[in-house]
Structures are given as C-alpha cells and as structure tokens.
C-alpha cells in the first residue's frame, strides 16, 4: 500500500513536466504549427527560471522565497516565449519549413540550457554548484492544512504550486478551445487557414499568439523540473527526452489537453515503472524503460488504423499558409 502510494506520487511528479509540454504543444498544433522545438523550449524555460532565481538569491542578503518564485516564473515565461517567437517568425513570417525550424530550435534550446547550466557558476565568478534553495522551497511548499490528512493528503495535496497549475492550465485550455469564440477561430485556422482567412480571421495573428503562448506554457514544464523536481539545481541533460514524450503525449491525448492530464500521469508511471517492478535484473530494467515509447507507437498505429474523424490531427498541421498560393 505504501509502495503504491509512493509510486502514484512519483508518477504524478514525472508527469507534470510532460503535461505542461503537451498542453503547450496542443495549443500550438491547433493553429496548424507542428512545433518540434518544444523540447528545446522546455530547456530554455528551465534554465532561464533557474538563472533568474540564482542571480536574485546571489545578489540579496536575505532572499525572499516569494520574490524568487515570481522572478523565476517571469524569466521562464520570457525565455520560452522568446523561443516560440523565433519559431513563429521563421515559420509564419519567413515561411520556412516547420520541422526543420523545430529541430534547429531544439538543438539551440538544449545547447542553451546545458551551456548556461554548466557554465553559470563560472560566469558568476566560480561559486560552485548552483542551487537556489529558498526559491525551490517556495516552489515545493505543500498546501498547509490539507496535506496533513492521511492518505488523501499525500495523494492529492502534497504537491507544489506548479503541479496544480499544470492541471488547471490543461483544463482551461480545453475550455478555451472548445467553448470560446477565439478557440473556435483558432481551430478553424488549424483546420483550414484559407477558410478562416476568408471568414475574416487574422490567420498570422492567431498562429503567432497560439505558438508563443504554447511555448510559454511548455516552458513552465522545464521550470517545474528544475525547481520542484530537482529542488533548484541543474544537471546537464537531466531533463532528458521528456520534451519528446510531451509531443508523443499530444497524440495519446488526441489533441485534447484534458485527456493529456491522465495521459501524462500514465506516461510518468511508465517512465518509472522499472524501479517498482520486483525481480528485474539490470538488463530487463533497461528493456522496461522502453515502455513509454512502445505504448506511444502502439497508440499511433491504432489511431491511424481506426482513422476516426474526430481523432485526427488538425488538417493543415505542418503546412505554412500562403494566402497567394491557393
């Protein structure tokens, strides 16, 4: 029972970063932009938040956790939105190929994260390992009273702010896409930009806003990882392939952020299952780590085979829109 509790908690902990990434990518893809730069953007978001908090804590005698918290979030949003802006400018204004731009952005972003993560202490004058305990503590603060409840408290109320924000963001985005006029317009842009354009929707503006917002949301996943998961420090390539898993989750969730919530916890569970399965040798553990990817491949095959209308990606996904080229 105790083991199961820890497993669920850890699975959720693994899932949150993926959920942020997937929510951001869904919003982006709904505008018809397949942003393969999300993994890089998540690195950029993570390191920017960490650097912001680091310079704040280093410069202040008695750093205030709450101020560090705000600075970290702002830096993350700014850096990841900047990543989204590079992507938008190249694909929307300069009409470059989306996959090529996305992959370059991932190369850039991962390098950006690892470079500053590895060199920040040297650039700041050799202070050794970076750690931002005060800010990280603020990110890790549990809900005061509710988390004391046995079992239920551990299961539901023992997480930091960003965990709840990830779920709220996913639900809000589902609501936005399905229930608002702007959401409808955005989906129209992703399905058929020419029709949307004829209906008087500013296609470029929708694409820009959706991509930049999506990138900002995804960046929070990186921040979650460095602050709440790692406790305010950086390890090179520590974030690993979670960004790609986020893109995979978009398919598992069939372009619905609310469905990505349980999907992300499932992915998180699969990601760490090898630790909890008894009787695995080192070699079989490695095979067990394949699970999230294999499950994604199976879902991919099944959805393509069933070919249901409502489960398909946005029709214009991956194509740039040229008004004069119809």
């Amino acid at each position, binding site marked *: 029972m105790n083991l199961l509790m820890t497993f669920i908690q850890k699975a959720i902990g693994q899932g949150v970063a993926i959920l942020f990434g997937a929510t951001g990518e869904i919003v982006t893809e709904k505008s018809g932009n397949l942003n393969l730069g999300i993994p890089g953007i998540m690195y950029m978001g993570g390191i920017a938040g960490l650097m912001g908090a680091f310079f704040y804590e280093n410069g202040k005698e008695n750093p205030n956790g709450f101020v560090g918290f705000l600075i970290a979030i702002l830096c993350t949003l700014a850096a990841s939105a900047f990543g989204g802006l590079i992507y938008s400018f190249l694909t929307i204004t300069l009409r*470059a190929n989306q996959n090529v731009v996305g992959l370059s952005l991932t190369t*850039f972003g991962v390098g950006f994260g690892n*470079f500053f*993560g590895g060199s920040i202490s040297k650039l700041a004058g050799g202070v050794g390992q970076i750690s931002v305990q005060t800010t990280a503590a603020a990110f890790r603060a549990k809900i005061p009273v509710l988390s004391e409840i046995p079992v239920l408290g551990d299961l539901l109320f023992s997480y930091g702010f960003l965990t709840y924000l990830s779920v709220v963001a996913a639900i809000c985005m589902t609501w936005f896409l399905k229930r608002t006029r702007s959401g409808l317009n955005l989906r129209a842009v992703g399905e058929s930009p020419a029709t949307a354009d004829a209906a008087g929707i500013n296609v470029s503006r929708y694409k820009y806003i959706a991509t930049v917002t999506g990138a900002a949301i995804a960046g929070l996943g990186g921040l979650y990882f460095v602050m709440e998961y790692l406790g305010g420090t950086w390890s*090179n390539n520590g974030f690993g392939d979670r960004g790609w898993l986020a893109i995979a989750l978009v398919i598992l969730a069939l372009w619905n952020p609310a469905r990505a919530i349980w999907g992300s916890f499932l992915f998180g569970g699969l990601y760490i299952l090898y630790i909890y399965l008894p009787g695995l040798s080192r070699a079989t553990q490695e095979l067990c780590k394949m699970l999230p990817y*294999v499950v994604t*491949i199976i879902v*991919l*095959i099944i959805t393509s*085979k069933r070919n249901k209308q409502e489960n398909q990606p946005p029709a214009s996904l991956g194509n740039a829109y040229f008004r004069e080229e119809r």
Partner: protein
Amino acid sequence: MSKEVKEPLVRMTKRDTIGTAKAWGIRLAAVLLSLVVAGLVIVAITKQNPIQVYLGIVDGAVGTNRRAWVTVRETLALLCIAIGLTPAFKMKFWNIGAEGQILMGGTATAALMIYAGDALPNWLLLVLIFIASAAAGLIWGLIPAVFKAYFNTNETLFTLMLNYVAMQIVTFCIVFWENPAGSNTVGIIGAAGQKGWFPSLFGNIYGLNVVIVLILTLGMYIYMKYSKQGYEIAVVGESQNTARYAGINVKRVIIRTMMISGGICGLAGSLIVSGASHTISTSTAGGRGFTAIIVAWMSKFNPFAMILVSAFLVFMQQGAIQVASQFGLNENASDIITGILLFFLIGCEFFINYKLELRKNRKEGK
C-alpha cells in the same frame, strides 16, 4: 473609389526565378550575418576580442593536423547521414529516426567487433560489419515505412519514438558489454589487435571513411538524378495522387526508399563506431541524425551542396568546442552556435523565394 487604399510598408512578392549567383549571394550574406551574431554571442560570454575568438575557431577546427582530420571525420559522418536521409526526404517522408538507425547500425557493428573480433580476418570482419550495420539500420527504417504505406501512420512521430527504443537497446547491450565491469560504458573495443577497426588507407587512418562516403555521395547523386527509382521517389514526393495515376506503386516506393535510407544511416553507424570512436554509447549518434536533416534540407537534396553545408557546420562546431574549452566553458556552446547558424540559413531561403518591395510614395490614386 477615391478613398485612399492603405498600402503596407513592405510587401512581398514571389520571385519567379532567381539567378544562381544571386541565390548564393544571399546565402553567403546569411552566413556572414550569422557569423557576426554567433561571434557577438561568444564575445558577450567570454568578453574577448572578437578577432581572437574567430581565430580561435579556425585554430580549433583546422589548427593542427589532428584537429583538421577530426573535422574531416565528423564532416564525413554528418555527410553520410545526410546522404542517407536524402531519398526519404525527397519523397517527403519525414524520417527523423536517423538517430535510431545510426544507433542500431552502431550496435550491430559493436556486436560483431566484440563477438567475432578474434575469430575472423580483419577484411572479412569489416565486410560483415558493413552488411550487418546496413541491415540493422534498414530494419529500423523499414518498420515505420510499412506502417506508413499500409495504415498511413504518422512517420515523424513513429521514427522519433524508435530513436528512444534504439537508445534503450543500446543501454541493454551495454549491460553485457561493459568494460571494465561496473563502469556502465563499453570502453574502446579491440584496442589490442585493432580488430574491426578501419585500416589505414593511403597512409591515413581516415582514408577508408573518405572513400566510402565519397562513393555513397556520388552514387546517391546518380541514383536520384538518373535512375528510374530516383524519378519515382521525386514523383511520390510531389504528389502521391499523381504517382498513383502514373501507375507507380506508391507503397512499394515508400518501403523501398526507406530501406535504402535506413540502410545508409545504419552504415553511418559503422562509420562512427568502427571508423572513428571504436566504442558504443547512447550518445554515439549525438544529435547528428537531426542536424543531418537540416543539412539535407538546406542543400535542396543536392549531394554536392551537402558537402559544403556539413563541412561548414562541423567546422564551426569543432571551432566552438575548442574556444569553449579554452575559456573553461562548457562544450554545449557549439550547439548554441549551430542553432544560430541554422536560424539564419533557414531564414535566408525566404529572401531567395520572395522579394520585398518597399511602399512607394505615390500621389495619384489608383
């Protein structure tokens, strides 16, 4: 209709054609601009004289005989992968699984080096390595192609996921191959007898790499340009409906092309493992599968342009690694530099395809 029509400040029109010289001029301008920006970034971080930074890059890439050959070796590996990706991308099959195909080829190579290294003469071993690595990459390319052909499964994400499956297969094998025990790395394979290593050719240890990759480059150029299959690939890439109408068996073309693409990427794995690093790890591919996509795309699938683009990228990467280590910074600086270069190179294509026209101050109404 006397109401003044608001004309935007800048408007773009599509160019019909552009002279080769002008197109390359624009590309050259983009390269220069990217060098300036990349230089500024390095200067901002290291606070050094920019001239010195550029000299450091040149020194790092080709400063000594050994460094120059490392640059050549890395260029060849990147070029080989880009050559492998060319037919797939020409067919508009987004094979972003080159990483996995390289790793599978590398794993097959390492397996042969470890298990058959002492039993066979070196030439036979090398022949087996080429066959096995190409076969391993071929299988890894075949799987998504079959699903794409029959169920129209999204190949971008399928091949991407296969990368990570391949990575786990490598870590699985490392458990059995690790040397020394407990290190979780394979170490240099066959260091004593150099079994399964590429032999020196023309007095150079990377001679065989050069020969193999140049043959592949030339072969791919001829295959894409003059063979019937190459033409079929181009037609399928432009429009599957047209291809079907013309009587081309689209399923067969997709599967066959991905077998070629995966096979060459697998061969690149043997080039890296047997011809360069002599070891295997999850970072054997090291992101080159992704960079090669950009190389192939930027070169418009022209194998000779690929030589230039990959040489330029590797030159800057090796230089940046050297500059970074000189200033005690982390080697990931080279990824940032690569990223900046790519953004400019990708962005400049717009100016080749489109022409910007400034608003003219016209008094008379339309």
